[in-house]
């Protein structure tokens, strides 16, 4: 029954299946899930594949339980993942907060569909981008990445696991129904060529170990339950020992720990891509499936003599603020392309600081944005 975790070869695969294969290649050995369109195929693939690699799959009673289970399995020392869509993502917010507070590595995939509420279960959207940033209560930093193809979701799922292990937090993969259900060529490389990261491990005396004392990059080493550290892990505000302390100083220190480990490592975390951007006068900014639309539109606009270029955001959170600020100093304007009514658009407005005009090409979900709509905006607005 045992099969390799890395299925080296060339395939015609959906984004959802490529995501599951990326997770296995990254070392994921536990999946707690709950069926939801359009993310169910990730759970179905994991249900088949995890036992083949000595891992474990469980379908929990709801997404609250799924998220709680992957935090538990992560504390047992196992790389863990769940996948859902909008309604389930809402239910997971509670324990995503616990994951942030207890600095627990794991990966959460949101295959976005139209919302709010039950919305458009079988049709794509990018309407949960701000929920990804701020959906759980309190102030925190998060990492969210947006793949643009089945091939990329394979690689970015590995990246998501590596970042979650390195920085000890839940990492969100914000894909959408269109990428999730799209079949394209996916090349799975040899296992040897895949670079994997694992959570920093403690050294020294177990009785003196502090599970939240940060190491050199701001991240504390992490043992597993059952290794003799007598860990205490709580969602209450806690000190470096993990003990709850209800005072302003401890809250300030804990918040600095969970925010600075991201803020001080932006160069290591943030990934962007660009197309014809070096000499561009108009910057089109997009991500996920909409970046593909935008790329076609930029190519079309160039043929018409419009000097447009594309900045593709691969990492959405932490937001690539410096990249937008740098562009704001040299372009005549921005066009944001996303399948919502202006979420990342607001971030671009914030970072551009009123220096140049900014336009949105977006709609509220249900289909992709056609390149012609972007070309029309490029022609009319500038």
């Amino acid at each position, binding site marked *: 029954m045992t099969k390799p975790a890395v299925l080296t070869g060339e395939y015609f695969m959906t984004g959802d299946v490529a995501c599951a294969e990326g997770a296995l290649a990254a070392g994921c050995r536990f999946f707690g899930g709950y069926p939801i369109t359009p993310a169910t195929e990730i759970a179905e693939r994991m249900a088949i594949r995890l036992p083949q690699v000595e891992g474990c799959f469980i379908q929990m009673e709801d997404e609250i339980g799924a998220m709680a289970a992957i935090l*538990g399995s992560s504390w047992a020392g196992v790389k863990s993942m769940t996948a859902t869509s909008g309604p389930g993502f809402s239910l997971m917010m509670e*324990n995503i907060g616990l994951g942030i507070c207890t600095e627990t590595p794991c990966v959460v995939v949101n295959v976005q569909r139209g919302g709010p509420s039950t919305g458009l279960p079988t049709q794509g959207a990018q309407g949960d981008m701000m929920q990804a940033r701020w959906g759980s209560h309190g102030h925190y930093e998060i990492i969210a990445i947006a793949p643009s193809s089945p091939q990329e979701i394979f690689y970015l799922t590995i990246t998501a696991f590596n970042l979650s292990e390195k920085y000890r937090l839940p990492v969100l993969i914000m894909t959408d129904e269109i990428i999730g259900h799209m079949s394209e060529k996916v090349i799975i490389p040899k296992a040897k060529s895949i670079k994997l990261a694992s959570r920093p491990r403690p050294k020294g005396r177990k009785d003196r170990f502090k599970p939240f004392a940060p190491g050199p990059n701001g991240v504390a080493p992490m043992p597993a339950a*059952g290794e003799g550290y007598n860990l205490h892990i709580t969602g209450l505000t806690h000190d470096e020992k993990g003990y709850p302390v209800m005072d302003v100083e401890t809250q300030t220190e804990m918040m600095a720990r969970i925010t600075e480990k991201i803020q001080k490592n932006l160069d290591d975390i943030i990934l962007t891509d660009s197309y014809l951007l070096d000499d561009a006068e108009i910057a089109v900014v997009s991500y996920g499936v909409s970046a593909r639309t935008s790329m076609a539109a930029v190519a079309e606009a160039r043929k018409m003599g419009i000097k447009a270029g594309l900045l593709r955001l691969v990492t959405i959170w932490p937001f690539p603020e410096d990249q937008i600020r740098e562009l704001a100093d040299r372009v005549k304007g921005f066009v944001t392309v996303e399948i919502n009514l202006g979420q990342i658009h607001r971030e671009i407005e914030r970072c551009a600081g009123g220096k140049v005009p900014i336009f949105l090409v977006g709609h509220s979900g249900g289909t992709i944005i056609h390149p012609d709509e972007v070309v029309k905006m490029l022609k009319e607005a500038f």
Partner: protein
Amino acid sequence: MQKIPMTPNKQPDHPLDDLIRTDRIPHIWCPGCGIGTVFSSCLAALKGSGIDLQKTVMVSGIGCSGRAAGYVKLDSFHTTHGRAIPFATGLKLANPELNIVVFSGDGDLFAIGGNHFIHAARRNMDMTVICVNNLNYGMTGGQVAATTPHLAKSTTTPAGNPETPFNLPLMAYACGATYVARWTMLHIRDLTDSITEAICKKGFSFIEALSPCPVNYGRRNKQKPLDMLKLYQEKAIIKNDADPSTLDIDFEKGIILGKFIDLDRPTFIEHYDKIYRPSRLQENVPGLNS
């Protein structure tokens, strides 16, 4: 919370001190509260059971009883409200070598966390769940719970509870628990014996421990601090193997205590290994990460 100064010439160590985070004492539990008694019973059971304590994990939810995880000197997780059982499920599945004890309250386990309890019992997930039942939400100041007796007063049922409480052992049995017992914190030896048995037993074990909350429940229901203990003493009917459907708590007629269910059926992991991972059965692979 008033801090009680520790005297420098301290008394001899308590026999359970090696299982307590003494640097976190004093605890938050009120005078007259029974959680500490159930907690020490649990610690005595853990110590007496002979299991590998380094491989033993306590998981709690939120509430007064949920603070137990913060005082036990084992790997311990104080999770979100109602989510101790699914968190513990993840721990157990990722490392089946771990012994899992979920220690939490009635509000946490049976209202906000009720769905997780039902399904963990149905799956026969290998863990011991100890529910301290104090008949109300103590931490938030005495609100009605899924266990509050009909007509009892609370801050959110000021004229009496219009609802009917759960029969917790019946619920555990109906959902598939393989070990079900109920004691009060006054029946400390029986409680400790039951917890010991449950910890050593494979499968989903459930123990309800009745415990007084004089500050929030007793005060609003004309009970002085010792009244509930008197009820425990005078109204207790010990009836092992009692039919779970007869176990509604009736403080006038009597409170039936005992071990009600003790049976064997395969756990989730045993079924999963047999169907999905037969190679693990032959090789006896301990954890997913080893």
